[in-house]
């Protein structure tokens, strides 16, 4: 029975393949569906197809959550693998390499291509390499979290962007007292607040302990995670968050920020790309990085960020065409288009007329005293998710910091070594 079906399936595939053989088609799957980024990618693909008439690029897109939950895994294992796919540097890429999905690009990038990127793009901490070999062409630098705010409302209350945690709490207190929602976050998927809470943790927990806890080598209590959870509880007690935080999605929360239903919104640099289609004309906003919590900490002014990039599938039918496209994509001209669409280019010396907000992101990264990667792309996902949930417990008042910490260590212990 199985054999018959296999044969049937194979025949159907051959027929499909034969119909499309006149042209080389590269299948390119990613999750860049929002305004500026999507338009820029479309423009780059169009330019490429014009320059290479015998190659067409077929984009297969998903929304973020679907892409990372099921979209990518389904495709990587299907019979028609994508030639190029979008991936986060770090843990996801390393897992793909181990499973044999990612192609080694060291040789292809050896003749100067790799040197066109910023210095840190292929450093050991960047997560684009495994055992010294390059597996990813970096595409964007993402600031995973910063705090966006509505400048008009802040001015209305004579407030300024805070520089220390205490000032931050004062700002929140003033706004809450005036009946505003100080911070809106849509945390039903747990990562929006979780990423921020991880950044807060990295500001107060020594890096070695932070790392040990997420690798399950130390309990979160021993590593010193009580403090960041207490900070989340402080925010809750100051009335910082929207009441429907735990039921709200990430996108509706961003919409609420643009609709002036809240003053601040902690989320990543991709907000800039969505502002075009979601914000009303004349909506004025800016951002500040998480205020300094403890000046004596290891990296009191760290930023949380990550690299994303494109991977060539190891079983790609057209690896050469795929590499041709990626090289074209990394050229300064194309990176200018890409940056103007609302992304931070990892290619060195790209001079684009970028959005001032994006320039600020770029400065934020340049001025940071350390770069912290988000736990859900660095460590085993279940452990990261458990911390995210503990942070949500403390930030919503569902549990005290103490209770959340106990819950966290029990949950992580129950899941076994990941």
């Amino acid at each position: 029975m199985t054999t018959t079906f296999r044969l049937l399936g194979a025949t159907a595939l051959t027929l499909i393949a034969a119909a499309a053989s006149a042209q080389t088609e590269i299948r390119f799957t990613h999750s860049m569906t929002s305004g500026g980024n999507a338009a820029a990618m479309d423009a780059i693909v169009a330019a490429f197809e014009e320059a290479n008439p015998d190659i067409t690029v077929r984009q297969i897109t998903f929304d973020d959550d679907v892409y990372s939950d099921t979209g990518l895994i389904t495709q990587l294992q299907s019979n028609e693998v994508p030639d190029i796919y979008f991936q986060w540097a770090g843990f996801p890429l390393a897992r793909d390499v181990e499973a044999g999905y990612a192609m080694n690009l060291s040789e292809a990038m050896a003749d100067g291509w790799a040197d066109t990127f910023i210095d840190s793009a292929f450093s050991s901490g960047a997560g684009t390499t495994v055992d010294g070999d390059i597996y990813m062409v970096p595409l964007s630098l993402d600031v995973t979290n910063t705090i966006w705010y509505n400048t008009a409302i802040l001015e209305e209350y004579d407030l300024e962007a805070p520089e220390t945690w205490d000032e931050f709490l004062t700002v929140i207190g003033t706004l809450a007292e005036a009946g505003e929602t100080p911070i809106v976050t849509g945390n039903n998927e747990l990562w929006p607040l979780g990423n921020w809470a991880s950044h807060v943790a990295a500001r107060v927990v020594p890096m070695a302990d932070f790392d040990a806890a997420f690798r399950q080598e130390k309990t979160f209590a021993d590593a010193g995670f009580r403090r960041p959870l207490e900070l989340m509880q402080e925010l809750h007690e100051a009335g910082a968050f929207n009441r429907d935080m735990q039921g709200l999605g990430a996108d509706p929360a961003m919409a609420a920020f643009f609709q002036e239903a809240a003053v601040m919104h902690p989320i990543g640099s991709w907000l800039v790309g969505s502002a075009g289609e979601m914000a009303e004309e004349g909506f004025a906003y800016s951002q500040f990085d998480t205020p300094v919590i403890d000046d004596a900490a290891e990296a009191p002014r760290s930023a949380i960020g990550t690299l994303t990039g494109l991977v060539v599938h190891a079983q790609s039918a057209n690896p050469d065409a795929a590499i041709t496209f990626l090289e074209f994509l990394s050229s300064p001209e194309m990176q200018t288009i890409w940056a103007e669409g609302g992304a931070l280019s990892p290619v060195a010396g790209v001079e684009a007329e970028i959005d001032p907000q994006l320039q600020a992101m770029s400065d934020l990264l340049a001025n940071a005293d350390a770069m912290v990667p988000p736990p859900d792309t660095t460590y085993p996902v279940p452990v990261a998710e458990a911390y995210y949930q503990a942070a949500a417990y403390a930030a919503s008042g569902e549990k005290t910091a103490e209770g959340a910490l106990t819950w966290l260590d029990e949950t992580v212990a129950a899941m076994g070594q990941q």
Partner: protein
Amino acid sequence: MWSATERRRPVEWLQFGLGALIVAAMFYPTVWMVLSAFKSNREIFRDPFGLPDEWRWSNFSEAWAQGGLGGLYVNSMIVTLVAVTLAVGCATAAAFAFSRLEFPGRRWLYRLLLIGLLLPPPVVAIPLFGILRDLGLLNTLWALILPGAAWSLSLTVFVMYGYFNSVRPDMEEAALLEGASTWQIFRDISVPMVWPSMLTMAIVNTINIWNELMFALLFITDDDKRTLPVGLIRFFGRYSTDYAMVFAALTITTVPILALYFLLQRHVIAGLSSTAMD
């Protein structure tokens, strides 16, 4: 039985009034969805309960174009049509065999088939994913059609078997005496005989498969092979602030199947009443 033309007694008016009240409350969200589809986004928030100031038919053409609903519609129709035909066809033949014919393992196989009534589809999502991959069906419409039909079989066979058993096999036996083959009896006598029940199950399965979400979410990745429920989820994600668009898209996708049910509901109830659903 009370005749439909006789004047209603007070208790019947009470029954009618109470019924109408509850039904109106149940039906209101659907009406509200359709009315909102005609409004502008601003109007939905300003005046959520009123009639639209202006009936904006353009919302529908815009939603249709922006959401690529045409393609989604075609996929949903293909999947539903093929899967329902497959399920009802296979189930009728199986029910015929189980109730009219004798073969080794008859009772045992019938009971095995009913296991499907007890298990939720999410139970098999992960292994089914692997099987579809091995068959090379992942990311094709077959990945929705074949599991969709298979998971409809248990209920369909259960109902059809009951229906066969409620009808005496006199005509089939007469045909047998005249020398008809089993296949001819099935095709010319049995199928026309159980037709009402087949129609009922076709409608029930159409509703289920048309709305199927989980398999569609997991097994299809290409945009051009998606079905309506998944397409709508994505549409909602992208237009999360434009409720007028969302309601227009929902209305376009819901009204046809709603109309189909209203047209055919008499048959559904007739099919169920004559069937041993108990």
